[in-house]
């Protein structure tokens, strides 16, 4: 068993479980702080420090193993602002997110990212107009908002990443040039005819195999 402080209270939990499971084991209702359990939804982002390292870091509770002496607090979850922007125009980024110019490069946002994204760089790229790189380095962003939590200048790196990705995506303009093929004919065939066609196109052979 190991000792872990969850939301200010110490609990004993078994070794070898995730922080998310530690909450469950301790019987703490984590309705807000739980979701996909696969590290994608961002609902379980928490702040923590360990005995070995007293600096406060952020992680996804479902993707991090509980450690002895760990101290964990949940992040309430910051929703993005309801900004209506034209994702095809870069100048809307600068007018919407004016505070981007006041970045002092302290790097707290980068330390807090549970996905290990260099959000300080992301802010720099977005500010200098290199949205392609901003989109690239923020590809795995789960929009948990931890990066914006402690920014002394009120910058929201996750919103800048979102804008950059949409800006880059809009530029690609994938047009529908698809070929209809035999769709109308196929949709009118009998199941027997379709079964024949299907097994021919898949191209399998029946073999009796020893297992």
């Amino acid at each position, binding site marked *: 068993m190991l000792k872990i402080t969850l939301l200010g209270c110490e609990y004993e939990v078994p070794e070898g479980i995730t922080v998310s499971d530690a909450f469950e084991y301790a019987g703490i209702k984590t309705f807000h702080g739980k979701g996909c359990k696969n590290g994608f939804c961002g609902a379980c982002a928490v702040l923590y420090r360990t005995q070995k390292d007293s600096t406060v870091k952020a992680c996804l509770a479902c993707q991090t193993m509980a450690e002895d002496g760990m101290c964990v607090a949940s992040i309430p979850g910051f929703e993005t602002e*309801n900004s209506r922007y034209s*994702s095809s125009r870069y100048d809307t980024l600068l007018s919407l997110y004016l505070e981007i110019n006041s970045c002092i490069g302290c790097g707290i946002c980068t330390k807090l990212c549970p996905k290990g994204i260099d959000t300080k760089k992301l802010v720099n790229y977005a500010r200098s107009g290199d949205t392609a790189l901003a989109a690239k380095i923020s590809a795995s962003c*789960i929009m948990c908002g931890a990066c914006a939590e402690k920014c002394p200048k009120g910058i929201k790196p996750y919103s800048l990443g979102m804008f950059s990705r949409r800006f880059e995506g809009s530029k690609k303009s994938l047009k529908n040039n698809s070929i209809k093929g035999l769709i109308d004919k196929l949709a009118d065939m009998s199941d027997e005819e379709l079964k024949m066609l299907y097994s021919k196109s898949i191209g399998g052979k029946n073999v009796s195999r020893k297992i």
Partner: protein
Amino acid sequence: MYPEKYKTALALIESKRENNLSFDFPKMGEKEKEELLREFHPEYKNEGYSVLRVGSNINEKVPTELARLIEANTIINESEIDLSSPDYDTDVLIIGGGGAGAAAAIEAHNAGASVLIVTKFRIGDSNTLMAKGGMQASVGVDDSIGEHFLDTYGAGGFCAYRELVKKLALEAPDAIEWLGSLGVDFDTDNNGAPILTSGGGTTKKRMLAKADLTGLEIMRTLKDEVRGLGIKTVCFSAAIELVLDENNCAAGAIIKNMENGKLSLVRAKATVIATGGAGSLKFGGSPTSNHMGTTGDGLVLAYRAGAKLKDAASNQYHPTGVLYPKDAEGALISEKARALGAKLVNSYGDVFINSLETRDVVSAAIIREYACGREVWLDTPIIDKLLGEGTIAENLPGMKESFERLGIDITKEPLLVYPTLHYQNGGLLIDINAETSVKDLFAAGEVTGGIHGKNRLMGNSLADIIVFGRTAGKNAAQRSKEKNNFKLTLDHVKKYNDELSKARIISDIASPKLI
């Protein structure tokens, strides 16, 4: 790092890797597949299923866990609900904030309707953002809509509704164009053409992707659009009962705040159910790759209101769920790994199935290996050997990162796998307008049935939620313009409860399960 007991298997797999590189296991014929499925696929076993005793699908079999919820008590007591003063009044109510719900909301809003989204968690917290490998659309130069149709219909065992499959194949390329216009950043080559890969059971390269984070990319973009458009969203609130009007058409829902338990009444001219699947019911004790919110709520709500189900007994087991380490059990390893060349091998290092057969067949073959006392491994290091160093880092960054945290380097070590409960193939029966058998009640996404038959192809779920989500949104908005002056009722709940007592069904649980 794997424990000692796997050392022999790992050594054997490594020693045979070079040989396996160039070996393609032959594809099976239809008859052989059928026999394999019948003997080893969980769906063909009789235990674990119950026959429904009431409602539109009476005497049909569904998984026991689902049957219990369908035949459970209601959370509300319908005689205590005041239907005279709704808390929300809207044109279109959307239940569920995943990909299908968000797509429906955007289209309904753009068609001029007032929209309210109600979701059990936050908008976007869903299975959509866990979708990894890609989205199918026949946009390749050598591909066609006809071929997408045939692949999908065939893989589903020829029991899907053809007009739905046809619509899916026809409109998937439009869906890509639409997502692109919203700023979804699909991977493209230097000429701006989308990079396409194959999936199990596709005869052409048809999968568009954003690395192995396709669902995340789509979902966060849809969410950003929903919020940007100012669409009203009520989070952490679940629908617990539908309300109908005097003509038995859908007219809104009763919702429950998950935090304080407070009930609210939503009056709506048209309602869209987009609640997703039922993986968290863990049929037969199976591990699942699903979000914890997938408790089949939409099926229960709509069934009580009289909606019909289609293929509700059919569930997909994804072949490559994680078996080790234990913390990640049931989590998904994207099919994209196999599309890129990773092979399934047993503990002797032997390939026993073509990795790109359809999911039902691959899962059955894996279960057969375990039944014969052999573990199954997904040999991921093959990818870099086949396509060059760095391919994994470039194409499967999400997966590489997840396993690094668990102490496994997928570029050097294979992964121990077992099939995991992944997708509900059937669900609420819809027509090509995405309307259920209850009027003014639309449905889209995993909660529906009839599109994928008894087995879904990789990448067709993302295509499904966008194509049918948009359809449901547009048609619900249109319908709301034609509807005025209706009275709310919960008579259907009373009627359903009477049916339960007539069938002498006594339940000790209430549904929908919610969590």
